[in-house]
């Protein structure tokens, strides 16, 4: 028993170290006084100050956030429709093909997605004159094409666990199909849509490869800027930036986890109350 506990304990430690060691060292070095990343010379918040005075970083961050928000919104709209088609239309011609094509971007190598989108944009510009040049618009479109696939999968799985008779009951009570979708289906799957939005948002914020392919002059996202900076040598302000991002992400995870636990607790209490009522 003791042996097993020791084994589990060391496995746990190793796992945590493997996952969080690099991040921890990054956080520690972001408070390093020295310009040299790997030499510790004392505690300082100097690099955070520099970070906020660097217009290139600030602009890139704002651009990334803007693209991520627009992308997430469009991805949720389109992905919901696609998920709905797969989950609710029953059998239609080419359903298997459609389902496969929705899932394809999830496993397609990013390099191929990026390259093919670049080719598409170039051809389109030559043919119809839109999109003129490459930049924010093309990055956003590219991000929507792959993140809507994730949303579609999330929505589809949520819909397939949702009791379809609830929608039928609404039809039966006199609501037209579009009204059923707005008043019944959407509110019920809303948590899945929020999750999809957040996922699409982070995917877009993360993406370096596809953005590099379809970006143009003057449109550099945060990952692109970070990457080009690091290629010139790792600078401490990048550590500071990464620490901020880690902090924000951790906070978001904690908040959403807390919200979920709270609603689950409340539900359990309600169920208990209902059972007590009955007896």
């Amino acid at each position, binding site marked *: 028993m003791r042996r097993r506990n020791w084994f589990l304990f060391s496995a746990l430690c190793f796992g945590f170290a493997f996952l969080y060691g690099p991040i921890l060292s990054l956080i520690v070095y972001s408070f390093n006084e020295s310009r040299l990343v790997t030499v510790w010379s004392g505690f300082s918040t100097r690099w955070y100050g520099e970070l906020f005075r660097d217009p290139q970083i600030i602009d890139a961050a704002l651009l990334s956030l803007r693209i991520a928000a627009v992308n997430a919104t469009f991805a949720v709209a389109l992905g919901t429709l696609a998920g709905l088609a797969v989950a609710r239309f029953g059998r239609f011609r080419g359903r298997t093909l459609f389902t496969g094509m929705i899932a394809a971007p999830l496993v397609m190598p990013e390099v191929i997605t990026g390259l093919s989108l670049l080719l598409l944009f170039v051809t389109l510009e030559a043919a119809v004159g839109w999109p003129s040049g490459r930049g924010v618009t093309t990055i956003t479109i590219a991000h929507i094409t792959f993140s809507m696939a994730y949303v579609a999968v999330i929505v589809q799985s949520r819909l397939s666990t949702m009791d379809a*008779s*609830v929608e*039928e*009951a609404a039809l039966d009570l006199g609501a037209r199909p579009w009204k059923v979708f707005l008043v*019944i289906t959407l509110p019920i799957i809303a948590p899945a849509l929020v999750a999809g939005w957040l996922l699409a948002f982070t995917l877009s914020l993360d993406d370096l490869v596809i953005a590099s392919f379809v970006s143009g002059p003057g449109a550099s996202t945060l990952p692109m800027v970070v990457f080009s900076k690091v290629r010139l040598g790792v600078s401490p302000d990048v550590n500071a930036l990464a620490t901020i991002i880690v902090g924000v992400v951790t906070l978001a995870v904690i908040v959403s986890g807390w919200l979920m636990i709270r609603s689950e607790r409340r539900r359990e209490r309600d*169920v208990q109350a209902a059972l007590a009522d*009955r007896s």
Partner: protein
Amino acid sequence: MTKWRKPDEVPFLRLEGVVKRFGDFAAVDGVSLDIYRKELFCLLGGSGCGKTTLLRMLAGFEQPTAGRIYLDGADITEAPPYERPINMMFQSYALFPHMSVESNVAFGLKQDGVARVEIRRRVAEALELVQLGPLAKRRPHQLSGGQRQRVALARCLVKRPKLLLLDEPLAALDKKLREHTQFELMNIQEEVGITFIVVTHDQEEAMSLSTRIAVMDRGQIAQVGTPTEIYEYPKSRFTANFIGSINFFDGKVARSEEGELTVTVPDLGRDLHVRSTRQLAIGSDVSVAVRPEKIVISRDPLDLPNSVRGKVRDLGYLGSVSVYRVELENGALIKVSAANTRHSAEREVDWDDEVYLGWRATSAVVLTE
């Protein structure tokens, strides 16, 4: 109360040769039915015989592969669900989880554009009817199973549909609550005067609830009739077996005169007498069917037109009745049930007793299928 037997009464709901195929499989296979106003009509049948599918076609969720459906004279075969004056109570209740009890009930009226004051009045009325007034603000997940079921019922009733469909409305309830709710359902139906079609696979429920029953078998209607007709005069072995238990004796018609048939049963080595107005050819194959409670069991010889001898092999005490399994001389087992009019200690017939079984000519029916 036997309006639907009047010859001039027009059917309220009429199904003409309704068929529903899923691929090659016919879930509903040529159903024709007439249902009259204010009936409480039960669809009864085993699992997978097509009851839900038939109900879904009435509600408009499935399109019949063939056949027509008329409601109150109008052809509604192709009408979408939201345009039919029919409401359905689902097997799973299908309450809207994100709305309060009150909003659930009000939903249908809102779709019809009923004025707000009117909605509030009718919702309160409907909740009163199912005794859920105090729980109006709760969400469905804060309710017990029985309470949810009543919300689902109120949600349908509040729209005052012409026809209400209920798919196994009582299946999720325990036995006691179920009996209670059965009576509630009948009272409500009388009070609101809506035509009900109730699906069930519980034969007792069908017998006690309904004005008429349709017994379904593999997508087809095996028999339609009042509970008494179905029980006393089953038309086929299937119906006879499905409702209650019954004993069969296979034989050939030996004589047919003045409404009485004489059937030779080779297994029994003797003739049985059955009252029947049916004209059957001499020598045709038939089964004589007798219900267990119609058979008299005694240790003394019986003065009845049908009488056989046997030995008690099994005895089940069920409180108000006892069920006997009696082995005849040819080895066949016959089920007999008798009311326990005396205390069990002074029971007349016991294990391994030699007994006589007997029944009247009017107590049995002849089946040709």
